[in-house]
C-alpha cells in the first residue's frame, strides 16, 4: 500500500505547510500533517515527523510564527500561523510550482514525431 504512494519531492513540503496555514489559520503540527494528508487524498507518503523540520525552517525564515496554546480538547500544543512575509513567499512559491508542473505536464505529453500531437 505504502509503495504506491508518492514520495514528497524536496522543497514541496514547505509550500504545502504555508498553504495549509494560509487557509486554515492557526494549527498545531498534527493538524497540519493531517490536513495535508486529507487534501492529498492520502496519495502522498508523508512521515508526519518530517513536518517539524519544515516548521522550524519556515519559522527561522520568519514566514510562520509559533505559540503554545490549548487545543479544543484541552491539550497543550504549539500552534503555528502564517505571517505577512509568509503569505508573500507563498504567492511566489505557488507561481513557481504551478509553472513547473505545467511544464512537466507539457513535456511528458509529447508524442513521437508523426504520431498524434
Amino acid at each position, binding site marked *: 500500500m505504502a509503495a504506491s504512494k508518492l514520495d514528497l519531492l524536496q522543497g514541496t513540503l514547505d509550500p504545502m505547510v504555508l498553504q495549509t496555514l494560509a487557509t486554515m489559520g492557526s494549527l498545531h*503540527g498534527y493538524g497540519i500533517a493531517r490536513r495535508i494528508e486529507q487534501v492529498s487524498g492520502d496519495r502522498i507518503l508523508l*512521515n508526519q515527523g518530517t513536518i517539524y523540520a519544515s516548521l522550524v525552517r519556515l519559522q*527561522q525564515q*520568519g514566514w510562520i510564527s509559533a505559540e503554545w496554546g490549548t487545543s479544543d480538547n484541552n491539550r497543550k500544543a504549539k500552534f503555528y500561523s502564517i505571517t505577512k512575509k509568509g503569505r508573500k513567499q507563498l504567492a511566489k512559491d505557488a507561481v513557481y510550482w504551478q509553472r513547473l508542473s505545467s511544464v512537466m505536464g507539457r513535456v511528458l505529453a509529447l508524442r513521437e514525431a508523426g504520431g498524434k500531437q
Partner: protein
Amino acid sequence: MTDRLRRALNRLRAFFRKEPLDQELDAEMASHLEFAIEENLQRGLSPEEARRQALVSFGGVEQAKEQHREARGLPALDDLLQDIRFAIRQLRKHPGFAGTAILILALGIGASVAIFGFVDAALLEPHPQNRRRSRRGQPVLAQDGSESGGR
C-alpha cells in the same frame, strides 16, 4: 540577503540553545502523538493499535528529531565537535599510541624546521652584505674598507 542573514543568526542562536529547544521539541512531538492516538481511539481502534498506528504515521521519532536539529542549528559544527570529542576520547583510551604518534609528529616537524632553517640561511637568503647593498644602493663600508657594523 537579509533573509539569509536572519536564517544564519537563527541557526547560530539555536546552536547555543540546544537543551531548551530539544525539550520543547520533545513536548511538541509528545502532544502530536497524543492527538493521533486520540483520533485513532475515536475511530474505534484498541489502545495498543491506536498507539501503534500513530507511531507508524509519525515515521521514526528519532529520525524526525534529527531532521529537525539539522534544519534548526549548525549541523556541520555539531559534527566537527563530535569528531574532536571522539578523537580525544580515543587518544585517552590508548595513551601508548597517542604518545608515540605525538612524539613522531614532534620529531618530524622539529627536524623539518631545523633543516629548513639551515637551508634557508645558507642557500636561500642573500648574503647579509648583499642585502645591505641592495637596500641602500651602495655597500656600507667603513673608511678602512672593511664592512661596518660587524656581521
